[in-house]
Each structure stands twice: as C-alpha cells, then as structure tokens.
C-alpha cells in the first residue's frame, strides 16, 4: 500500500518551503513541492502544508496575493473534502486570507520583527497535525506580522468550539488571548505562527517540531 505524499505549496517569496520539505522527510513522510500556479490534484495527496516566508514580499497584506493563486484557491476545495491543511507563519496568514481560518494577523505590537524562542501551551490538542502527549512546546518564532486579531464574537466562538490550539506563555506580539495557533471547527485546518520545522534537531536548539507533520 503506497502512502500518499504531503504537498507543500510554493509561492514566489516562500522561504521556508525547503525547510518544511526537509522536516517532513525527517519524519519519514513522502512529500512533494507544489507550484502556486498549478491546480492541486487533491486526491493524490494526504494533506497540504502552506509554509512560511514572505510570499509576494508581504506586499498589500501578508498572504493576500498568494491567496489569489490557483493552488491556494484549490485549498478551499480540499477543505470541503476534509483534507488536512496546515499553515505555518506566512501560511497561517494565507489561510486567514482564504477564510479557511477566522481572524487576521496584524503587525506586531512593537512594530518590529521578532526572532526568538517561545514557550507554548497546547490549549486544545489537535491530532491531525501533532502527535504528542506533551502539554507544552518550545518553538522559534520569526515574524513581523504575528499579532492574531479577531472580533469579540469570533473569539467567543473559538473558545466555545475549542479552536484555540496554541497559546504563548508570554505574549511576544500582542495577539488577542495570547493566541499562537488556531484550528477550524472540524479540526482539519490548522494555522500557527511559530516554526516547527526549525525545531527538528538538537543542534537547532530544540526538537519539539518533530511531533508535527
């Protein structure tokens, strides 16, 4: 029985596409790079990852121009079929622009890019994308627009439906309710600002990213 690969979407400006590719391989999974202008052959894949970086330079709005591409739009179809979809950093921004996840990511409160390791709490575990019994993780963040924002109404809905996935122990960017990652109602679509692919070896500074993918 052949295992279907995970597809990693690639946009002009994606920087973490190869990092994610290598990380998925490290976890012994089959993986393929998917060019943004090509339509997704959804059935050929086990799931999709939208990686981090600066797609289209973050121009206009982070993730906005990438969300217009054929591959990104096809993710809406993939979601309807309940396929697992993960958005990391810029990927999270793309999924919000596609409205596959609620809310938006705004400029950090300090108005500066932040690169640091953070402590995270797994508020509501998501078994689709993370296999671990741990309740806390240490992952690096590196972003200028990581402040999660949503209306009060949406926030209440997220809480009620247990969609708040990861929260910062110490809020680095002003995200509402220290939110670092969320899921959709069905739990197949997840988005997070920290970079699990950057924590997959001791020499990288941590290995909590290995339980992802």
């Amino acid at each position, binding site marked *: 029985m052949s295992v279907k690969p995970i597809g990693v979407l690639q946009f*002009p*400006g994606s*920087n*973490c596409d*190869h*990092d994610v590719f*290598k*990380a998925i391989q490290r976890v012994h999974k089959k993986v393929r790079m998917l060019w943004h202008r090509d339509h997704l052959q959804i059935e050929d894949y086990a799931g999709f990852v939208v990686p981090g*970086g*600066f797609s*289209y*330079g*973050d*121009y206009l709005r982070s993730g906005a121009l990438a969300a217009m591409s054929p591959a990104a739009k096809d993710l809406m179809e993939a979601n309807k079929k309940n396929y697992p979809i993960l958005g990391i950093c810029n990927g999270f921004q793309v999924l919000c622009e596609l409205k596959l996840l609620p809310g938006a990511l705004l400029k950090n409160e*300090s*108005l*500066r*890019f*932040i*690169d*640091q390791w953070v402590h995270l709490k797994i508020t509501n575990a998501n078994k689709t994308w993370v296999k671990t019994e741990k309740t806390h993780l240490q992952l*690096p963040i*590196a972003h*200028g627009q990581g402040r999660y924002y949503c209306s009060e109404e949406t926030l209440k809905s997220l809480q009620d439906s247990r969609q708040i996935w990861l929260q910062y122990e110490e809020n680095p960017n002003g995200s509402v309710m220290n939110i670092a990652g969320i899921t959709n109602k069905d739990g197949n679509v997840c988005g997070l600002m920290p*970079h699990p*692919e*950057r924590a*997959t070896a001791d*020499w*990288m500074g941590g290995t909590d990213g290995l339980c992802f993918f």
Partner: protein
Amino acid sequence: MGYASSDLDQQLKKYKITHKEYEIILQLLGREPKDLEWPIFSALWSEHCSYKSSRFYLKKLFNKSDRVLEAFGENAGVIDLGEGEKVAFKMESHNHPSFIEPYQGAATGVGGIVRDILTMGARPVALANFLCFGEPSRMHKHVDGVVRGIGDYGNCVGIPMITGRTEFDSTFNDNVLVNALCVGLFGKNDPIVSSKARGTGNYVVYVGAKTGRDGVHGARMASESFNAADADKRPNIQIGDPFYEKLLIESFLEASKKQLFVAGQDMGAAGLISSSFEMASKGQVGMTLDLDLVPLRDENMTPEEILVSESQERMLVVCEPKKFSELQNLFDRWDLDAVMIGEVIEERKIKILVKGKVVVSIDPDILVENAPQFERPYESSLKTKKVIPKIQNLTESLSTLEASSKEWIYRQYDQRVGTQTVYDCHEEIGVLRLPSERFLGVALGGRARWMAEDPNKGGFNALFEPALQLILKGIEPLAATDCLNFGNPERPEIMGQFVEALEGMNSVAQTLSIPIISGNVSFYNETNRQNIIPMPTVGVVGLGHLKKLPSSFFSQEGETLWLLETKSSPLDFLKQIDQWIREHQPSYTRLVTKQGLSLAISRSVTKNIGAQITTTVNPWEESLYQVLVSLPPTITLKTTENIQCTSIGKLQSGPLTFEQETLDYSQIKKLRQQAWRQHFYGLS
C-alpha cells in the same frame, strides 16, 4: 573641436574626472572623449569601481592557498571545503547611502552583497553585518533605519543573519559604516559561474527589474566626501526590493543548474556599464548593446541615464541563441523579464546603439584594464590614544554602552531561516551546519579603539581576533574578506593609515595562512574635512574540526575556569591555544574583549550556571590577548613560554560571585538591557 578651458573644467567637474585622468584618456583614445564616453569613464574610473587609490597596495595582500578557487578579480572569493562542497563569500560597504537614507541605504547594501554571491552561482545561505555609528544621542534615526533596513531586506529574501558587530564612536557621527557580509553555498560539485563573456553571436541578455532613474550616479556618490551642501544628493536613493531579489535568486540558480547561460554578472555599482564592460574585458571579446531594447520604467530616460542607472535587482547574462527561449521561459515562470539587448562580437569593442546608430565604440580594456592606478603618497599615520574611563565594579561595567545588550538589534533579524543555523547572534561567532554535517564558522573583526591607537596594531587585530574566535570554537580559519573603510586617500596621513593597517592584516594572513580573497574599499568617509579613524573590518570563514562546539556560555558545574594570556607573540599564543582546544575539547571558551575580564565573565553566566571568581589579574581593563576556558578539575594547564595560565575560579550553579559583588543571570541581563535602553530610549 576642443573644449574651451572653462567648459572643460565644468565637464571634468561634472563627471568627477581629474585633469591628470583626462590626460590619460586623451592618450588612450587619441582624441577627446565624446558624448556617452564621459559618463562611462566617470563611472568606471570612479574610486568605487576602479579601486584606483588602493589597487596598488591591495595587490600585496596574501591571497592564495590550496583551498582558494577564486580570489580578487571575481565578484566574490571562493574556497574549496572538500567533499564536493565550496563556499563563496564577500563583505561590502554601503556607507554613504546609509548615512543619507539609512533604511534604503542599508537595505540595498544587503541586496548588493547578496547579488555578488549569487552571481558566482552560489546560493546565499548566511548574512553578517558590521555597523559603526556615532554617539547614540545623535544616531537614533540611523540606528533605527539601518537595523530595520537590513532586517526587512534579509528577512524577506530569506537569508539568516548569523553574526554581527556594532561599534559606537564619535568618529562616526557624520559618517556611519554599514558593512554587509554574505556567504553562499554551491550545490554539491556545481560549477562556479563565470563572468567572462564569450562566444561570438551569443546573446547578451538583461534579466530582472526594469531600469529607472534610481541611483543615477550612485558610484560617484560613494567616491566622494560629504560637505555642507548635500541637498543635491537626494535623487540618488536606490530602492531595494527583497521580494524581487528572492525571485532573482531562485530563477538565476535554476538557470545556472540547467546550464542555460555561459556567463553572468550582476548589475551593481555603475549598473549596465560596469557589468557589460567587465564581462567583455574579462572574456577578451566585444559586445553590442542596444539601449532601445533595455526595459525601462520611465520611457523618457536619456541614454546616459540608462547606462548609469543603479536600479536594483538586475543581472546580465550571456547565453547561446539556441538556449534563449528556454531561458526566457524560466525567468517568466518567476515573473521576471529576460530581454536580449545585445550580442557578443569578436571585435574587441563595446558598441552602444541608440535609435539604431552606434554612438559609442570603445575598447573595454581601456576602461577596465587601463583604469588609472595611483600609488598615492603616504606618510606615517596619525595615532590617538583613546581615553578609557576607569571602571571599578561590575554594576558600573554592565551599565555602559559597550557592555549593553545588542539584543534589540539582532532580535529583528531572522537568524534561523534555512534551518542550518547552529550558532546565531547570541554567540560570539556564527555557525552553519553544512549538508555534509560539518560546521562552517563565520567571525567578524575590527576594533575602533586599536585602530585609532595604531593602524598597524589595529589591522593586525582586525584579522587576528576573528581567527582566534574561530579557533576557540574548534573551527579552523580558512580565508578572509575585508571592508577597508577609510577617510580621504588624497591626504597622505590617511593613506598612511591604509598602508599600515594592510601591513598589520597581511602579517597575520601570511603567518596563519589565511588568504584575504575578496573585499571592498570604501574611501572618502570624510565630512567637512573630518575623517573617520581607520576602520578596516574583516570577516573570516572556517571549517569545524570538533564534533561538539565549545560554547561561550558556562555549562558544566564544578569545572575550573582558566585565564590564558599572551606572553610575547600573539601568533604563537594562538597556535598553542589551537593545540589545546583540539586536545582538551573544552565545553566553554571565550575571548576577553571590551572592558576586560569582568565583562567577559558576566556575559558567560547562564540561568543555571554562574561562577566564583578569585583573581589578581586586573579585571577592568582589556589587554591583548586573553582567553577564558573551563575544564574538568582533573586537568591542569601549565604556563609555557607563549601562554600565562592562571586558574581564576570555579563554575557553580547559581550566581556570579566576583570580588565584592554577587550578581545572578537575570540581574546581569537586566543591567545590560537597561544600558541599551538608556541610550536608545524612544526606539520601541
């Protein structure tokens, strides 16, 4: 038709050509220069492009070794690391633009050095920077702009910043220094891209962004001093686009891998002129260039503006006609233009066409090979002893600008993109993990204090210190690059500093066999006749030989802390240290630098491990050279003829106990962060 004397003077002034140079041009051409020949000479014979004041002395630098594949003459130096791996690296300055427009100046500085590496066919995999600012109170706008400019560009283009240095000194009040270093990794066994145009009939292809008026005459700006009336510098702001650069990186490397072009060069200083003339001259061929075919942002640009424009993110490649279509399609996939603007010809002339007519026909060698070279006169340099304030206790020491935490700066840089970073800006050096799983180290050198005191000693230190930093981390230094930032070379005392600093650097290069294989010279860092102190900065690259790297932070409770000091020859000191590192493989090593022992020890303290120190050595002053090492208590180091060994304490869990003071990690951290905020209040 001759020039009336006053007209000639005006023309020479406009194009910044001296009378002497004009005489040389008359001789080379056999006539007066006409039309576009003026801006061509002006650009290519500017200091920035021709290195006319420095070439004579740079030739004396030690620049060969078994590993060196490319040295001066190419866009970047390349060294062979074995196992099919090789790296290209170079450091470059963007000082004058960063003073005028800090954000764009620094950003385009990063863009430029990245393209120098890319043009060799290497993937840029690491950045480092060396920043020199004046007194903090005057520099908020510059510190903010430069750091954001470097950060925004580097982060967006996806290259990690793995190490950096900052110096603050009043000498830089009106002349900031922004030196950017880039390291590129070649694909396993991939060839180095040539910059030699060749093949009669091959297409000359313009790739990348459209040409606009940005940076027109930028190379000239970098070749002259500032004075009070600088309002006319305003239109020269080059705008960088890191997104576009990222597209260029991916597409160029892909095209190179598929061997779709035979030669390539980025359009840097002096834009289209420098790339075309240099490629033709190196390849011993000629070229036609049709300016009507150059993609323009503004249709009203004059031929001169097109030639000298420094619009960013553009490359020039030479490709065989049969491969052109595939080349175009590849670049189009990345949303970039690839336009044929000329052809390689056998005749050794660059022929520039405007509206179908040849308006310039000139031998590229005249501009490139025969650029003037001055052996500028020099006299013994100025030396100034810096007054170092006396520090009496740890709290005082940790509250100074020198000791301040630079975290505010490097937290704005992505240090981990690419997932190859092992040591980032928190550490003393940057380290990457290569695909072969070996460690590649990068260290920076250059100290204002020692430069001012004695350029020879300062030059020595600029290369010696980073070499020692690498050795302390179990990394063998292999080669170096430099940025020679100096004042006005027309002043003999400045030229004296230049010559002496190079001599100092060269003595280290030769003795330790660290060839200096690439670099950049930035002269004219002078404002209103005030020159900066000499400030050569150096980047050294090396290959790790230990499986586990020593760290600059305490980790092993109970280990003995040793202080090792130079007795006579620093070079012999370094060699002995290298031997001991290989033998004992310590978990902790640190070079003592600014403010001496006390600061070095304080910075080594971690959340869990501090130290108990008892020493008779003066802990408040830096002395060249001192090293800290921790070793298991069973090992004793004996003083030799080169090294004075003193055991000065023990690592313990908990705080640092030093003379009468006890400080723990969070207190030390707080003091150092406050020290920064105190000088840069108002910067968020």
